[in-house]
């Protein structure tokens, strides 16, 4: 994956890559959407044409207008996704943190239902093969077992990266969409009148006249799940590639939906009776290759969801929405990452989904709710973007907002009806939301208690300490990580760490500040020498998409300074230099814990206790900042936020 995300030229190769990355979820929707709409209802023209019409206009309004045209404009230095959008607009309102967290939570939650529903829909197609009808029925143990096997294999191989197999994604998806198109066109050719289903009148008729027609929107919505991926993966493919490939994808999807509707009206009989119109429009001789291609497409869709979840959590960590967890780079390919804890969480979630729901039909009922919320949250953030960044006319924004509000609220209401099918999901989503909420808000409370002092006040003391040979040397170069981004300030706790009890003597004191930028790929640094070769402040500016390798960057900076003769490595001869005349570098990391001497208000107490518990479960500071353990000294400091003000302690009188 190359670094240059701004100029994504449109080439055959780039279009193929976009096909492989972006459209897995939305592209595999034909496997279950119409089946979900028809369900066990009598097949009628109103229902079939109405369903297809709703699908078409949902793809037009929700996907084409909202995502392809509008949302893709909201790129943050070429990157997309809900957190990228939040990073652009957060300065305009503090309250935008709530839609950001909610949108990310539901997007992540969706990552545990998309893989099982997609793969199950594909595998259940084997029931259409002669001889396998009674073996791979939906809900059968063998079907469930095969789905679990495929998913488990997929999750297992995440640690090795997808750079090798990823090259095949584009061609496989191209074949998939061609398959959709040809199967659809074949039916349309025989029954061309189905094209009239594109008339919005049929959508209106179904919603208004068909019994409980409005509630069918819950199933209709499944056709547009995956639209968010068009935006999330913007950075991988570029706007033009996405817009160009969408033309082909949409035509293929619509052709297939129309083809399925043609079959339903002319061959479907009175009831569907468990059949899947997607497989019914396949010629018998094509069934097995078709199922194979479908299975591959769903695996690619699942892979895209998994990769997207890693990216989401990585961005959440960098924006202080998620506790630090281990992130690995499974290949040299920039942008590829693997988060073991998220991988395990998703894997367990997916397995539980398939075991609980057993078939794709039951999962359809639970699917979609989360994504309606994600889309609504994106709409809120997008409106701020259009208003404050693009500076569009307020009336235009209001009209667009009303349009999307009507559409998305309708989908939301229709999906809420399915909430009883997905109660366990709600706990999962609540859990993710609480983690993000607690982490973000507790950090704010925590940060309010961080006292900064003027570094200059301690300069003479530092110089004295550094030259005091009566104090044993702690290290040649002593480095503290500081949140202070102004040149002359550092945290009070750092001065306490240097001067307390056993003062830490060093030849050079470094204060290293990591500034996470709102741009995704920044990597620069600034140097400020407060006392020449004695007290040095360094600010490293790191983009929010980059995993910080602090020690590596620091050593590079030192090398640069030595090479430019701006720094003397200060290998002063003393006892230790007899054995080793290399300069040593030591990082000091200050880990805080809640002191028992606190008396909290309920909300603060709960938040802070939960925060410190999450911190313990997550990654340590030294690992998070890419510090090698051997060069790190960890100090534990008690934190007192609300000191106990009254202690009823009395002295016993002597008798």
């Amino acid at each position, binding site marked *: 994956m190359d670094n240059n995300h701004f100029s994504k030229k449109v080439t055959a190769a780039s279009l193929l890559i976009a096909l492989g990355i972006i459209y897995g979820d939305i592209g595999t929707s034909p496997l279950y959407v119409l089946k979900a709409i028809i369900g066990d209802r009598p097949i009628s023209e109103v229902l079939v044409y109405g369903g297809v019409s709703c699908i078409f206009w949902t793809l037009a309004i929700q996907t084409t207008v909202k995502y392809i045209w509008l949302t893709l404009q909201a790129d943050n230095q070429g990157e997309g996704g809900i957190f990228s959008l939040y990073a652009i607009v957060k300065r305009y309102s503090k309250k935008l943190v709530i839609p950001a967290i909610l949108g990310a939570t539901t997007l992540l939650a969706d990552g545990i239902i998309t893989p099982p529903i997609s793969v199950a829909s594909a595998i259940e197609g084997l029931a259409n093969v002669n001889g396998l009808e009674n073996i791979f029925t939906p809900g059968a143990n063998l079907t469930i077992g095969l789905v679990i096997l495929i998913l488990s294999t997929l999750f297992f191989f995440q640690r090795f990266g997808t750079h090798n197999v990823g090259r095949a994604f584009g061609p496989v998806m191209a074949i998939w969409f061609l398959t959709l198109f040809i199967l659809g066109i074949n039916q349309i050719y025989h029954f061309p009148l189905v094209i009239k289903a594109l008339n919005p009148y049929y959508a209106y008729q179904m919603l208004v006249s068909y019994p409980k027609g409005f509630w069918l929107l819950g199933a209709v919505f499944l056709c547009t799940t995956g639209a968010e991926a068009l935006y999330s993966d913007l950075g991988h493919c570029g706007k033009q590639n996405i817009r160009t490939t969408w033309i082909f994808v949409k035509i293929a999807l619509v052709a297939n939906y129309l083809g399925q509707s043609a079959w339903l009206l002319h061959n479907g009989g009175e009831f569907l009776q468990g059949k899947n119109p997607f497989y019914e429009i396949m010629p018998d001789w094509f069934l097995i290759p078709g199922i194979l291609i479908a299975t591959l497409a769903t695996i690619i869709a699942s892979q895209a969801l998994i990769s997207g979840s890693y990216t989401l959590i990585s961005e959440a960590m960098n924006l202080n929405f998620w506790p630090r967890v281990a992130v690995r780079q499974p290949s040299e390919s920039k942008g590829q990452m693997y988060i073991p804890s998220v991988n395990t969480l998703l894997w367990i979630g997916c397995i539980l989904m398939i075991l609980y729901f057993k078939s794709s039909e039951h999962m359809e009922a639970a699917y979609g709710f989360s994504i309606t919320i994600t889309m609504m949250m994106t709409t809120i953030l997008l409106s701020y973007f259009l208003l404050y960044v693009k500076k569009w006319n307020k009336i235009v924004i209001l009209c667009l907002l009303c349009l999307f509000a009507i559409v998305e609220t309708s989908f939301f209401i229709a999906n809420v009806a399915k909430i009883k099918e997905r109660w366990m999901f709600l706990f999962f989503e609540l859990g993710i939301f609480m983690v993000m909420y607690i982490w973000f808000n507790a950090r*704010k409370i925590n940060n309010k208690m961080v006292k900064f002092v003027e570094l200059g006040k301690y300069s003479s003391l530092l110089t004295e300490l550094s030259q005091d040979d009566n104090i044993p040397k702690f290290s040649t170069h002593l480095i503290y990580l500081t949140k202070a981004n102004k040149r002359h300030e550092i945290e009070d706790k750092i001065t306490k760490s240097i001067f307390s009890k056993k003062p830490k003597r060093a030849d050079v004191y470094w204060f290293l500040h990591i500034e996470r930028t709102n741009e995704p790929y920044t990597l620069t640094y600034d140097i400020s020498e407060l006392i020449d070769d004695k007290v040095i402040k360094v600010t490293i500016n790191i983009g929010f998409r980059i995993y910080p390798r602090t020690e590596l960057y620091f050593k590079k900076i030192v090398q640069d300074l030595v090479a430019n003769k701006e720094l003397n490595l200060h290998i002063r001869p003393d006892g230790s230099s007899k054995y080793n005349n290399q300069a040593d570098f030591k990082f000091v990391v200050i880990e805080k814990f809640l002191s028992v001497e606190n008396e909290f208000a309920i909300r603060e107490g709960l938040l802070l206790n939960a925060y410190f518990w999450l911190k313990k479960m997550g990654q340590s500071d030294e690992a998070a900042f890419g510090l090698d353990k051997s060069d790190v000294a960890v100090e534990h400091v008690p934190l007192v936020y609300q000191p106990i003000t009254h202690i009823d302690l009395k002295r016993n009188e002597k008798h």
Partner: protein
Amino acid sequence: MKNIDTSAILYEKYFSLTNREIKITLKSGKIIDGEIVGFTYKDTSNKQIAFWHFQPMHSNYFIDFDNSRQTTDIIIPHKEIVSVYFYEDNSICYFTNE
């Protein structure tokens, strides 16, 4: 005026001084002489200073090296400050906070 960070103005002015004795007038009417010894931000993403740690004149500044939490500085919310008088150049900053 709403979007101007007045705490940054005070910060820049104060830390450019040699003689850092100042007189702060608070909304409550209280007037204190002393020095700023530290400050706290609203949060790390918002770089506005929310509180000033102020050491009143004629009290010995105690550096709490041992985390004994026995300090003599007082914490002043920035939004409570009405004005700051700088002894070095006899200038006054008025803060018409929101």
